[in-house]
């Protein structure tokens, strides 16, 4: 195995790798954004919902969090087809990861909202704010500040979990790489390369989380 040969094979596989990388980023991004929106609603339902709403949200969160991601991915790939809903592997994968992300973010938001002192709500009420306005201007800004570090962890977990989509045939970075290795037999260099790529994705999310945390803290006058 000489270096020139390895570099040549990497060069030949460049479009495949970029495609896989692009798909990994796309799936991660979609699942994190959609999962965060879902998670915020779930967190609000868990904290302030009437009991039936709270109960449904609680069941959702507990089931999703108590199930391995791989099982969720397989379930969302195979179960809908039983009901004659045809999802392709990519759609099924994004749905599974979104639901998974939503359950984690839901718990994060619930924790953050519940940690806000009761006096905040009372002070807002006493100046005549409705619940909706209290939530928007008083509670959520404080909860977000509180939730960002844990949210970042959840986002990194989702990015890592995209690797599991290779099992149902989504040609993301892992599957693409395995196909290249099947063709070239250069397992070590290619695995090393994607290990670096995954590290860079997670590192970028981590930095993005820190950056948002810093900006929010500065705006709210709190030291991160």
């Amino acid at each position: 195995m000489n270096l020139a040969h390895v570099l040549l094979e990497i060069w030949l596989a460049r479009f495949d790798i970029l495609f896989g990388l692009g798909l990994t980023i796309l799936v991660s991004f979609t699942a994190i954004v959609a999962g965060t929106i879902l998670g915020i609603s779930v967190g609000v339902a868990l904290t302030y919902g009437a009991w039936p709403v709270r109960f449904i949200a609680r069941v959702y969160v507990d089931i999703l969090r108590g199930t391995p991601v791989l099982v969720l991915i397989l379930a969302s790939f195979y179960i809908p087809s039983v009901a004659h809903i045809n999802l392709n592997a990519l759609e099924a994968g994004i749905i599974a990861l979104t639901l998974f992300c939503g359950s984690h973010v839901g718990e994060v938001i619930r924790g953050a909202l519940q940690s806000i002192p009761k006096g905040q709500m009372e002070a807002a009420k006493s100046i005549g704010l409705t619940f909706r306005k209290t939530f928007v201007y008083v509670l959520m800004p404080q909860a977000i500040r509180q939730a960002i570090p844990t949210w970042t962890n959840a986002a990194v977990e989702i990015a890592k979990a995209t690797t599991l989509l290779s099992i149902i045939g989504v040609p993301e970075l892992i599957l693409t790489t395995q196909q290249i290795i099947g063709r070239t037999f250069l397992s070590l260099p290619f695995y090393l390369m994607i290990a670096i790529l995954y590290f860079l994705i997670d590192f970028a999310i981590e930095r993005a989380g820190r950056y948002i945390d810093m900006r929010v803290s500065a705006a709210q006058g709190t030291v991160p």
Partner: protein
Amino acid sequence: MSSVLQIKNLHKRFGQLEVLKGIDLDVAPGEVVSIIGSSGSGKTTLLRCINLLEEFEQGEILIDGKAIGYRMRDGRRIREREAVVAKHRAMTGMAFQSFNLFPHMTALRNVMLGPMKVLNLSREEAEVLAEKWLDRVGLLERKHHHPSQLSGGQQQRVAIARAIAMNPKLMLFDEVTSALDPELVAEVLNTIRNLAESGMTMVLVTHEMRFAHDVSSRIVFMNQGQIEEQGPPSELFYNSRSQRLSEFLGRTAFKR
């Protein structure tokens, strides 16, 4: 003159425990009423009922002659919708023992929030109003500070400005100096004294007997969920009729 606040036969219970057992109280415009009594006598609960932070089972509270929080429908007493309750709450301002400033906003933004989001003033109008009240409590130069950068006394003064900027018909003060270091108490009491002298109608729950004596037009002594005795400070502090009030005053540091 008609009363700003009228409380009629107010009852409030927490489960089995009845904390307010039929309170009747009228407060005239410009009056400063201090409620005193030992802890557990229901003073704070009464104040929280007036601000609709607690629900109550029986009786009525009227602000400017208008019943708040509940209305009658088909002979049954029902709680008003949340938006209506919010409107009713805006008629009274409240300052809390623990300040409860919004930590993610500057002093100025804390005071501006209500005028902008409840009174629907423009940002510019709200800012002018907020600066006026921050100036009144002596904190205009601190307007861009966050609560964490202010002392307890300063936080409480911002909280008072925040409540008053809503132009309430009645101000409620719930043990506003209890959480403060002794050397910070005076600045807050002076702020309240200034407001009292400007004609603001207010009801205070306080443990500062000397202050209550000096600032109030009337003292209300509560005991076990009832008003035991009330009257002008001179009468209540020096010629108390009830044995319990005498005992209570004896336990406090009030020097006759």
